[in-house]
């Protein structure tokens, strides 16, 4: 896969609506991303998954999910999508590095990943519920601390 062909190829993944270079990295918008189709396409071209970031859009709403891929060990491909009713298809069966990342997002933000082969808590201490960081993370994003 030539880096110059990356944008056209990425745009062919089901659900991708835009792909632009920014800061030397490729940022991809895909609100209705077909997660499994993306995972299979990346493996086909030897593009590895670095990690997955979850960010709550609001306390009770959806969660932005960014898949951080690394192409040719030199270019980030950041694919941003959003949960649907608090859930998103699991990538873990296709890409093992997604497994712990998805378990962490479930612990901290309460996102469920149907199809995850081992959805046990990863970091969440006993006595806490899934989504333990959802409210405080949303609050600090919407009302950041002001400097006096």
């Amino acid at each position, binding site marked *: 896969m030539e880096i110059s062909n990356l944008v056209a190829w990425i745009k062919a993944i089901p659900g991708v609506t835009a792909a632009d270079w920014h*800061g030397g*990295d490729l940022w991809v918008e895909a609100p209705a991303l077909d997660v499994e189709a993306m995972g299979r396409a990346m493996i086909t071209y030897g593009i*590895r*998954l*670095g*990690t997955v*970031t979850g*960010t709550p859009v609001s306390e009770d709403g959806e969660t932005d999910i*960014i898949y*951080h891929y*690394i192409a*040719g*060990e*030199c270019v*980030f491909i*950041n694919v941003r999508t959003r949960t649907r009713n608090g859930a998103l298809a699991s990538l873990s069966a296709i*890409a*093992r*590095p997604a*497994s*712990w*990342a998805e378990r962490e997002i479930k612990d*901290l933000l309460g996102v469920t990943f149907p199809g995850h082969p081992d959805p046990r*808590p*990863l*970091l*969440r*201490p006993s006595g806490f519920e899934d989504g333990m*960081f959802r409210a*405080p*993370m949303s609050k*600090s*994003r919407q009302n*950041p*601390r*002001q*400097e006096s």
Partner: protein
Amino acid sequence: MAYTVPLGPYHPALEEPFKVNVQCEGEVIQTCRIDVGFSFRGIELLAQSRNWLEVITLIERVCGICSNTHAMTFCMACEQIAGIQVPRRAQYIRTIIAELERLHSHLLWAGIGAEDIGFHSLFMEIFTLREKIMDTLETVTGNRVNYGMNRIGGVLRDIENPKDFIASLESVAEVLHKVVIPAFIENPTARSRLTGIGPLSREKAIEWGVVGPVARASGLDMDVRKDHPYLAYADLGFKSIARTEGDVFARVVVRALEIAESVRLVIEGLHNLPEGPLCEQRGIPTMPAGEATMRTEAPRGECLYYVESQGGPTPARVKIRTPSFVNIPAVEPMVLGQQLADLSLIQASVDPCLSCTDR
């Protein structure tokens, strides 16, 4: 009859708490389950309530070993968002500190590894060397851990007399080449204890997404310093180290040879430290809205940060993916079919960092 053996979360073979549950038939491991989270501190959430200056101090506490890596990678992501160009002298100083950090991290691991295989005299030799590195770090930064060297836009402290450190580092290099590297690579007792155990094939390394020395020992020649050079690595002519065997011995060899390469990089950096300012700006930086992803090569492998700014006084999101987060799960394929007696050595061979993993 199958039986289950828990290693950890608190055990003399573990540097930090995590749990490896294995089920055995006789002495052979059949299944493995790994539990982490015993050092969870919620640093990513805390980062959203610190200003852009305070958050560097917080981020540096992700890990007590690769603390500089975290602060540096975070600052580099912020610099990308703000479009800040770091002065060359600061880039060299960051490189020197990063390699000194890799040295003390690898030497810590090598010393513990020597102790794990009962090679006590080698442990003493390695820790004597490590003290020289710690003394160098303390003289340069004022601290043995959490060096406080990084700020957004550059570094906080200069290395005023760089050539003063070269003699000590050359003596470290001499002992490395004459004693430590041959002890791990050529000593028949060490070789026989380490060879062939805990295998991870190249295919499995790709499947599990491992990084750093674990990946390089399985034939994946990936290193951010080589693949996407940052700071002064392109100037200093960095050479990556890789092996193809994929066993514990290969992981030992990769790290042992990387120690020598790090010493060379530090000496080269001190010799060629350019003149110039340490930072582009003063005070608390004003960060524009934006987002960035950043990778650096930590001692244990690729360290990945995602930072989002909404233009406010605090970060809107800081995501940290440490190398141990992807290397520790790969202990599972390494131990299957292996002897129970080798379990502690195999898990140690990935150099697991739980402070990093749990954050």
